[in-house]
């Protein structure tokens, strides 16, 4: 591989690694998602630095132009990352659904209790789920906000 290309590859990959590191440092990126990126970046940087490795790999699988092998490896890494993210998104969607269901059930239970104890005041307001979000809104969301400002 040509020296200029290698330098460019090393600089770009180092930049990627630095960005990942900085994101983890600022707690924007969790370690568990950073690891895959770090692995990808390290693989690419090793291939860029270690000249012989890429040529050997390329010859082994019958690629005549070694930089193409670099693209092939990068493509594979990106594919793995994408599959990983699809898995993560699926898990998050599923958890989100469970959370929404749980909140709905809690709200229903709370309203039933309020109705039973007559705390709700206006029974018509407490009776419908849609109103309770807005009607009970005077009280409950404000406590949630207080909560966030206190814990945050």
């Amino acid at each position, binding site marked *: 591989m040509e020296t200029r290309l290698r330098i460019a590859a090393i600089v770009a990959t180092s930049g990627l690694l630095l960005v990942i*590191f900085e*994101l*983890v*440092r*600022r*707690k*924007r*990126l*969790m*370690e*568990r998602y*950073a*690891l895959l990126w*770090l692995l990808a970046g390290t693989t690419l940087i090793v291939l860029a630095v270690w000249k012989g490795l890429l040529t050997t790999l390329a010859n082994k699988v019958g690629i005549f132009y070694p930089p193409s092998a670099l693209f092939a490896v990068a493509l594979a890494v990106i594919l793995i990352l994408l599959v990983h993210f699809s898995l993560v998104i699926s898990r998050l969607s*599923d*958890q989100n659904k*469970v*959370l929404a*269901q*749980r909140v709905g059930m809690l709200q229903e239970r709370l309203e039933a209790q309020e109705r039973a104890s007559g705390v709700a005041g206006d029974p018509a307001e407490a009776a419908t789920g849609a109103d309770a979000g807005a009607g009970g809104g005077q009280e409950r969301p404000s406590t949630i906000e207080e909560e*966030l400002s206190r*814990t*945050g």
Partner: protein
Amino acid sequence: MSQHVAIVPAHNEAGAIAGTVREIREHAPDFDVLVIDDGSTDGTAARARQAGARVLTLPFNLGIGGAVQSGYLWALEHGYQIAVQVDGDGQHDPRYIRELLEHLRARPEFNMVTGSRFLAGSEDGYRSSAPRRAGIGLFARIVSVITGQRVTDPTSGFRLTNRRGIELFARDYPHDYPEVEAILLMHAHRLRSCEIPVRMRPRTSGVSAISSTQPAYYMIKVLLAVFVGLFRAKPNIDPGDRPPVTAEHTI
């Protein structure tokens, strides 16, 4: 209501949870017991309730970090002054809760006391398998160097904290495999922790959160977290700073 709470994270520990709760109530009667049912699919929550614990049920498995932090949030909300973490699997002997508490009372300059398996006086207790001990030893050395004090068992989750610790952990707690990072988090906030020897027991049922396939991931993840942590000049969770969810910002 008591001023003290025992936080017991449990994930599918139906076999051991009732015994753990009863032991805590027996040996530390002035502690309220809060079991965090971390998305269990067996009867963990029901058995804990039967044994007399309050149960906080999470809708899905958050992992040990999220589960324990739920406990600290609950303790903060309910105004507890002291919180002790006791694993639901029975490895932590509740007889030592009293010692942990007395140690913290006697040494008010400390904010957290950890029960260590590796201090003199705990030789005959359960000390994990040899490869794990090697890993724990490595983390112990790293944490000792960073904090500038001797830490022998940084992976022990048997910990008692005062109100400052509860406030800190309710706001910020590491996600997976949190114990090592939690010590460093305390250190970063200039809170102090110490250790006393305890004898631990082998788990009686269930499976460890760190299964046989995961130690490599555990080591790498915690090493990365510790390394990156060195470059965080100022902890970013003092009042007026970022909200609890920091991953919401884009690049």
